[in-house]
């Protein structure tokens, strides 16, 4: 009945399908603002882009939707001619990717082995080009990929899948601000594809450019945080150390003017090692081309290097683009990671001293010891120095940037509450 109202629908659908068949590299789908129809196909195809004129969209979608719901109600979906069905579904998901019903029929047909997984992946990518924030489409994509990953894949296929996924998610993230689904999908890809480990560093480098262009996008920053955590789990990327050396140098610069600079610590604990390493870096001593920060001798220096790099980057971004809460949140992540490292070193020290005494301390006591020691840890004092200078700078900002000072105030509160031990120092600076 509805088919009679708009007989051209089937023709338009087959036109769309033909474009998909002809152009395997189809990238985009757009609806063109043409409201008056001529007796001419509303399907246009140029430069790997599929265009559909606006006047037919509504009629087409009504046709597809009614036809599919009728088939579903009469339980004839399985017996329908697969070609007709795939045409209808293709039109349906292109026009409304948020409709779970359509994706579910596709799922059913995939399970029955009537649709090809890879061509479905392509259709899904084209769908995402118009609606980059469709969570249903991303969910379906993950479903497809997990089905693909179930079977054995050779290395080149996995690599091409990875590249395609990275392209699709980047495209989606670029087209829709704060696209949580895209970044979430990217994270999923990085943790599920077997070859993704080799790409963490590349991703980390390329995401720097992205976050400096999208300063208020928390999803992107969160992805970077995810990458950081992943990189930390398998450290040992020495080729990166030249870059980190410079940031370490800048990071520890306040130490030079501090009294902690020449303090010599008791024995060859990791803290002591770290300290001597830092001093080496600051004095540009022992510059070795293979690994300038000697990350092999101390496991923490590389972590600190990454975090220092990140902290300096985020400081610069906060200065350049005042009033973006996402940056402050990211800063808190960096600070908290640094805080955990400091704590880790101190507990190690404490436990070592305990063992040397021969009598292990009760747990509560041990914690308090490490808490006290945090304050006199040279690393912690450097961090506090950095926070102080930034907060000071923000308190001086102009009235137009009142939001920035509000954010700075919140940050200060957070620092006081979470990183309690440093509270006194920060208070002094702002009062």
């Amino acid at each position, binding site marked *: 009945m509805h088919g009679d109202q708009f007989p051209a629908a089937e023709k338009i659908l087959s036109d769309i399908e033909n474009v998909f068949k002809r152009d395997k590299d189809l990238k985009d789908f757009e609806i063109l603002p043409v409201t008056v129809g001529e*007796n001419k196909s509303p399907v246009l195809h140029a430069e790997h882009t599929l265009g559909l004129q606006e006047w*037919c969209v509504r009629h087409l979608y009504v046709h597809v939707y009614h036809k599919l719901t009728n088939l579903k109600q009469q339980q004839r979906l399985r*017996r329908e001619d697969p070609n007709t069905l795939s045409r209808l579904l293709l039109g349906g998901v292109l026009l*409304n990717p948020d409709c779970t019903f359509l994706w579910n029929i596709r799922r059913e047909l995939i399970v029955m082995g009537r649709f090809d997984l890879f061509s479905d992946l392509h259709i899904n990518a084209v769908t995402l080009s118009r609606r980059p924030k469709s969570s249903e489409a991303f969910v379906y994509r993950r479903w497809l990929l997990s089905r693909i990953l179930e079977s054995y894949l050779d290395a080149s296929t996995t690599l091409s899948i990875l590249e395609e996924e990275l392209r699709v998610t980047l495209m989606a993230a670029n087209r829709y601000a704060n696209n949580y689904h895209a970044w979430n999908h990217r994270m999923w890809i990085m943790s599920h594809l077997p070859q993704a480990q080799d790409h963490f560093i590349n991703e980390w480098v390329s995401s720097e450019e992205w976050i400096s262009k999208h300063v208020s996008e928390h999803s992107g920053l969160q992805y970077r945080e995810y990458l950081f955590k992943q990189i930390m789990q398998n450290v040992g990327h020495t080729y990166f150390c030249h870059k980190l050396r410079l940031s370490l140098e800048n990071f520890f610069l306040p130490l030079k003017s501090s009294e902690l600079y020449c303090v010599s610590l008791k024995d060859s604990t990791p803290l002591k090692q770290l300290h001597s390493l830092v001093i080496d870096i600051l004095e540009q001593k022992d510059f070795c081309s293979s690994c300038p920060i000697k990350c092999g001798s101390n496991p923490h220096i590389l972590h600190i290097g990454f975090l220092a790099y990140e902290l300096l980057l985020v400081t610069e971004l906060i200065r350049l683009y005042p009033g973006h809460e996402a940056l402050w949140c990211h800063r808190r992540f960096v600070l908290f990671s640094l805080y955990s490292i400091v704590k880790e070193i101190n507990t190690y020290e404490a436990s070592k001293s305990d063992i040397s005494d021969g009598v292990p301390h009760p747990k509560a006591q041990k914690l308090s010891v490490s808490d006290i020691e945090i304050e006199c840890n040279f690393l912690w004092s450097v961090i506090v120095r950095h926070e102080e200078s930034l907060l000071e700078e923000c308190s001086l900002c102009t009235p137009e940037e009142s939001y920035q000072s509000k954010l700075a105030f919140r940050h200060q509160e957070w620092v006081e509450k979470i990183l309690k031990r440093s509270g006194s120092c920060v208070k002094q600076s702002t009062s």
Partner: protein
Amino acid sequence: MRKTLLSMIQSNRNKLEVLKQPWWIPPILRKKPQHSFSVCTGSMKQSYVQLRRVFMEEEALINKKLPKELLLRIFSCLDVVSLCRCAQVSKAWNVLALDGSNWQRIDLFDFQRDVEGPVIENISRRCGGFLRKLSLKGCQSIADGSMKLFAQLCHNVEDLNLNLCKNIGDSTCQALSKHCPKLQRIDLGSCCEITDNSLKALSDGCPALTHLNIAWCDSITHFGVEALAHGCPKLRSFMCSGCVQLNDAAIRVLAEHCPNLEVVNLFGCNLVTDEAVHKLAENCHGLHYLCLSGCTLLTDASLIILAQQCHLLSTLEVAGCSQFTDTGFQALARSCRLLEKMDLEECILITDTTLMHLGMGCPRLEKLSLSHCELITDEGIRHLGMSPCAAENLTVLELDNCPLITDASLDNLVSCHNLQRIELYDCQLITHTGIRRLRSNLPNILVHAYFAPATPPPAVGGTRQRYCRCCVIL
């Protein structure tokens, strides 16, 4: 053998959902019977007992009045689903309804997803020599093993449809050739594993073959077809769309040995030349359906020889034969006066002259496709509209992608009272007003054009509701 099946059916007699799951489904696939009677009230139990007695003890009126032979005769008119229902009624009916004589013609197309090997084996055991016609169209799970058993047991089969049974291979055809000499019609369309060996086997064992469909079995070559032609001289219908390896030699032998050919489909056999058509036309005068779409090497010579020899031609499909010109169609229209359906899509050289001759020569023309015939103008349509066929028979006219057609053509078609569908996609000179005028004259016509319908479509519940019902009310 038959008893085992029978006992299986009887043990399942009380199931209520058997209607959905016919008996040929192996028992594992069936659902467990619902023991609903235990929760029934006393009176219902009583009435059930009564009913049971009435039906089971052969005291039912219908069983008394009608002799078994007559009941059997009635059952033989029922379809598969009704027979299965009747088999649930009583022991007596079960025996009668499942009698092999009722199962001479089986079409399992509606159950294609559920049909698997054991189903075919059950059916062949039960029906045996009674089975004449079996359609397994689209039953993709069927494999050679069960078909071999089928061939052994149902040796009287005459009509077998295996279209889209993609797992079927040569050994099925070899078994059929061995056991089923009465086979007349076989449809092997889209069974891509079929090779020349199948055709050779069929030619050896099935001399009665009249109808053969090997569409899209693209490993078939001229060797297979030649063997077939030698062994099956009664062939009347030969469909080999998409068998791209077939050449002139194959068609020549076929035409020489099978003079009874009436239906020939050579869709997409692009090696075929005028010579093959020449042989076909010379030998098979009874030809009434011929599809030569996609045979791009053909020229007007083919049309002229067809016009001279095959006067009974009623359907001619020549889509994509781009070398055909007005000369060929003029000859054809003059002598083949019985033409009803013509597909001239993409015969790009034809002009209004062809339409003029078709209009004059073919009064029975019902369906005419002129898609992508870009030289056609209003003048040609005017000739067609004035011809006798237009007023009486013309029902479908396809004019899509004819860029020169204007609204004047539509005005010329007003006298075609039977016209039901007209395609005008991409005819850019056609306007909305022209279509409206045509519609007002022929109210039942279906116009296919890209124009959006005048009435706005009803709202769709397609987009997911953003709020639940209570939130909407609030």
